[in-house]
């Protein structure tokens, strides 16, 4: 589904990713871990197409297409979803209007009919329940005045509504208490299927107790320096990143 080859990328002329390789197939859950400054969020930004993030070398192929060549909205319509580390508050934009517009853009792109307000609210009802969102949620402006936990639940709710093929979760666990973390993880797990894939970016192993990855990768200094199964996360939890980093620095 996603093939990243020798990706070099950065922001404002500072190179952050330095030859990253990663391959993700449908039905898989990948976790990317790494210390601060290793390039985790840069990878998420490059995949979603955030302004200012530029790939200088390498390629990213998504479902056979050049992902880096697509505008952010086209990536979203093609099924790439980024759950933001810091969801943006947008006062004045009503949540129903926002999500209905987004869903209809995606549906139009897929050649499906657009939903009217009634059908839309019907469509999202179960998904709101899945993320334990309050009744009045859809009447509020997007993320405006939401708590940290509500914002993250909203991200996963949007993911549930848009039904992406590739979901990139950028530190979705950060700042969450354990109850909110379980709700979010439960939502993500329910959305997992044989036709989609998830890329979970996290600093802490804790999230991976609830979202169990098929593969764990360690990102350091802009490259993946170690890959393994879910046990690698436990090993990192126990030993920290230092043993990998040391090995890396010696090889360098």
């Amino acid at each position, binding site marked *: 589904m996603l093939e990243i080859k020798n990706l070099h990328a950065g922001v404002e002329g500072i190179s952050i990713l330095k030859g990253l390789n990663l391959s993700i197939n449908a039905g898989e859950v990948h976790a990317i871990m790494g210390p601060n400054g290793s390039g985790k969020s840069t990878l998420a930004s490059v995949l*979603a*197409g*955030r*302004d200012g993030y530029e790939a200088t070398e390498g390629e990213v192929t998504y479902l056979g297409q050049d992902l880096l060549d697509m*505008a*952010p*909205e086209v*990536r*979203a*319509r093609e099924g790439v*979803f*980024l759950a*933001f580390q810091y*969801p*943006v508050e*947008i*006062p*004045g*934009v009503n949540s129903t*209007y*926002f*999500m209905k*517009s*987004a*869903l209809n*853009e*995606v549906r139009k*792109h897929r050649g499906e009919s657009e939903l009217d307000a009634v059908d839309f609210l019907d469509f999202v009802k179960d998904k709101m329940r899945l993320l334990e969102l309050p009744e009045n949620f859809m009447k509020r*402006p997007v993320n405006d005045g939401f708590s940290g936990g509500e914002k993250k639940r909203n991200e996963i709710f*949007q993911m549930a509504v*848009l039904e992406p093929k590739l979901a990139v979760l950028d530190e979705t666990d950060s700042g969450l208490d354990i109850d909110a973390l379980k709700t979010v993880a439960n939502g993500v797990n329910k959305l997992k299927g044989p036709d989609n894939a998830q890329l979970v970016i996290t600093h802490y192993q804790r999230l991976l107790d609830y979202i169990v990855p098929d593969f764990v990768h360690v990102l350091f200094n802009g490259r993946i320096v170690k890959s393994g199964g879910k046990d690698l996360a436990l090993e990192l939890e126990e030993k920290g990143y230092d043993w990998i980093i040391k090995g890396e620095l010696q090889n360098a």
Partner: protein
Amino acid sequence: MTEVADKPASPIDRYLTAFEAVEKDSAGREPSWVLPLRKAGMARFAEQGFPTTKQEDWRFTNVAPIAKLPFLPAGRSDADASALDRFPFAKLEGSRLVFVDGVFSNDLSLLEPQADGVVVASLAAALNECPELVEQHLGQYAADESNSFAAMNTALFTDGAFIHVPDGAVVEKPIRLLFVSAAAEEGATANVRNLIVAGRNSQATLVESHVALNDGAYLTNVVGEFSIGENARVEHVKLQDESKEAFHIGALHAKLDRASNFTTHSIALGARISRNNLRTNLDGEGLVATLNGLYLTAGEQLADHHMVVDHAQPHCESHEYFNGILADKSKGVFHGRIHVHQAAQKTDAKQTNKNLLLSDNATIDTKPQLEIYADDVRCTHGATIGQLNDESIFYLRARGIGREKARQMLMHAFAGEIIDRIACEPVREELDAIVWDRLDSDLHLKDAED
């Protein structure tokens, strides 16, 4: 109407010539007390002339293009009823007064039966039908000594609306005042005078709109005088949607009595140069005055709002909220002075002006001012100038919403902060739709770098 003199020596001469005709006309048509009022206005206008940018109150708005216009008193143009359907609020219920180039049109107006004592009429008609009532109020609130456009209006007004809601009366449906410019000639000038008198415990909603049938460089010079009685509630919506070549000078002078609640919304979309002078005199205890405004400008438009809120009595609240979205080389001006007199203890005055600049060439001059002579008050003011938030745009795009739609949604939200304060629901909804359309068609949504 009069012939205009050829090549007058100074711009004021043309107005003096016009005044001679008004003077002759007044004798047979109006009660005798009106002419002295007009003469005083003419004298002040002749003395002051057009304001210049050397005057502090006009520093940012150069009206030289108006002074240069070949002044033509607006005549009696025609408009047919079907032409009015395309203008906003055409389908609202309730009475509608229609003025074409400043002249009342009985045919186009719609006067529903009103409760006892409620008057919805043209001012010219009211001057004949209820002259004593008009005399008590006309010229009592508009302080034209400091505003030569208002003085010109007092001298030369042709007509306007007269609304009287007596003590205890409630007018449920909004009253529409529609001012249509049909004049195609450059310099055609409509001096329009509105007088609104709301008695004690009365209630009314007024929807004033200024629109055009042609793209002319005409001038609308409108003065509205509002007397809001004790415990009265009045909501006034003004939509300025003049032709893009036109000039619009407006003044609203409101005297507010004890425990009243007065809200005026100023939505400025049209005109090459527009100026709205809002003067509220908070002249009773415990009242609430809200001045709420939105301006959208593009091309080389200039939209100026100039407010003075006079807190003369204790325990009053005033709120001013003005948002502007400015594209291309357009310009916005916001001037808000809050004057808290010594007696006005426990004043709560708030003022905000927020601006979105869509282009590097758009400018805003914003000048909030506080002048406080009482010691136990709460006054806040603030102004912001910014661009659309890139992070918000990216967030919307990352959900599949295209860039232009994302920008439009954010601008609409920004404008919505103002529109949402309109209490009259059908008016609010219609204005919301108009603003959405304008953001789509008029303002340049694309980023400069695209």
